[in-house]
């Protein structure tokens, strides 16, 4: 078959089955982007961000290995809940998503390679979705692995008691909730930072503003809180932290909502922000000298 025939055949196929073309394009974009984002030395600090708590728990396990009391399980469960809710959701996942998702487009602007993505027969919306999925896969894989590692290290040191807590007690349910909330956090923050990177040349300052907003959102009316990612996450956390004083603002749930509404709410918020990104990408121009 000649090259011309190949071209004609591909054109015919994409005209007849545009959705299959979009699907295939998204899978190729995801593959290339995951490779670029996950397996690179530049991302080492994100791995550290994800695995530092696991390393701390591991160190604690090693130095405290002769002082194990099964009665401590409840206390360690609270410590783990604190690590997940205060460190991962507020800092770790937040900053990692900021790095991963803002780099998807802005990084390509800095590296002067975005024009290659704009010169192929790919709708820009498809490009946004493909890159977003790639970022989400990277962030979810990284932080779910890290949280799973923290969970295993927390309970494995208790031996039989730990095993019993996990498999016969609330342990499995808790880790399931943590993994779900982690995935939602990555999707929610990811959508926010992707949109910020399309809105601003330097998304760091708006990112800090978002961080501030996420922290103080609980003092605002509930309709305003719905514009915060942590509003939805807090309702899905399996363990309540007994924090009092000013820090309670990070954990307090003013108006409880059902898990279903929390999940659906965050997914809807993320889709709305992604739709905004799809709109913004059409305004984007390749002006590397202005970067």
């Amino acid at each position, binding site marked *: 078959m000649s090259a011309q025939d190949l*071209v004609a055949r591909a054109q015919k196929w994409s005209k007849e089955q*545009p959705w299959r073309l979009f699907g295939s394009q998204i899978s190729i974009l995801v593959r290339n982007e995951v490779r670029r984002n996950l397996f690179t030395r530049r991302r080492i600090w994100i791995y550290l961000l994800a695995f530092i708590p696991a390393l701390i728990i591991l160190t604690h396990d090693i130095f405290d290995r002769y002082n194990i009391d099964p009665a401590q399980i409840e206390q360690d469960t609270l410590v783990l809940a604190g690590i997940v809710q205060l460190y991962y959701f507020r800092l770790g996942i937040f900053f990692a998503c900021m790095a991963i998702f803002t780099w998807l487009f802005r990084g390509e602007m800095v590296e002067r390679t975005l*024009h290659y993505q704009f010169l192929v027969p790919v709708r820009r919306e498809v490009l946004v979705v493909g890159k977003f999925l790639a970022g989400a896969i990277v962030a979810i894989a990284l932080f779910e692995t890290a949280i799973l590692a923290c969970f295993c290290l927390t309970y494995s040191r208790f031996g039989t008691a730990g095993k019993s807590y996990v498999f016969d007690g609330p342990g499995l349910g808790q880790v399931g909730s943590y993994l779900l909330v982690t995935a939602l956090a990555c999707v929610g923050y990811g959508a926010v930072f992707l949109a910020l990177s399309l809105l601003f040349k330097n998304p760091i300052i708006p990112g800090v503003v978002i961080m501030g907003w996420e922290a103080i959102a609980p003092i605002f009316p509930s309709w305003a809180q719905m514009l915060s990612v942590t509003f939805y996450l807090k309702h899905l956390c399996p363990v309540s932290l007994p924090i009092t004083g000013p820090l309670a603002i990070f954990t307090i749930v003013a108006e409880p909502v059902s898990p279903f509404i929390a999940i659906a709410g965050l997914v809807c918020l993320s889709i709305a922000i992604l739709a905004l990104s799809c709109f913004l990408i059409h305004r984007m121009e390749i*002006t590397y000298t202005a970067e």
Partner: protein
Amino acid sequence: MTRDARQIVFENVSKFYGEVLGVNKVSFSLGPGITSLVGPNGSGKTTLMNLLTGLIRPSQGAIYVLGLTPHQPIEFFRQVGYCTQFDSFPPGTKGYDFIYWPLRLHGFGRDQAAKLTNEALERAGMAQVARRKVAGYSKGMRQRIRLAQAIAHHPSVLVLDEPLNGLDPMARAESIALFEAIAKQGMHVIISSHILEEVDRISDRVVLMSSGYVVAEGQIREVRREVRDHPMQILVRCSNAARLAAAAFELDHVVEAKILNDGHGVLVRTRDAEQFYLLLNKIVSGGLVEVDAVAPADDDVNSIYQYLIGSDGGPA
């Protein structure tokens, strides 16, 4: 001008970067064949090409490429290949992958994309080094791998921004032959260059640009005729400038002979350079003047612009 399915049409296109002018009120249409955009650095050639391919949007006006706009990316980028001037590549990319993956995004299957990739690599003379990382390529090789990517999907419109930059004479000749072969297939090939001589031999049509304006456009013969009639400037560094200037003025074809400010040379404007060089030889052999250096003062394209657009840089 309308959405002609065989033409590339610019309708009153302007592009401003804030208050800075990119291009202003550009209107023309291009048919198949090789068209050269020629102008000095900063004249708006790249802006025009980026507008054509949708990398930037016009502040006003409209552009149609074979009746399509970049807002229809699937149809548009099947027809258009753009070899940009940006000398940057995705980190860690190998030459082969640089061509193969965009082809997959076109909707080609694995085998089809591999076949087209190999064909493009062969045409660009890059098959031998395709498995190496692009970061290790020379400038000329990077230029050619970008060219290979631009032609891999057999576009109908090929846009090449300074495609001969960084190429050695052999690669330059091969690339020119490739452009000519592509144009002969009935494709539109648009080449930018800041050196008119570089492209005038292969161009069917030329668009001369300066400061964001199209200052001349048409068949290459017409523009060349204008250039040929333009008096040539020759700079002579010599010991007795006044004597040389006086001798030069006796020739009919000498339009102007200006003694340099330092008094050690003459700038001669002549319609017949060969005759002037003969006179110069005679004067030198007669020992009347000691010549240190002789150089054409306007071999570059800037002098042509000076002639075509005047000294203020505005439109003709």
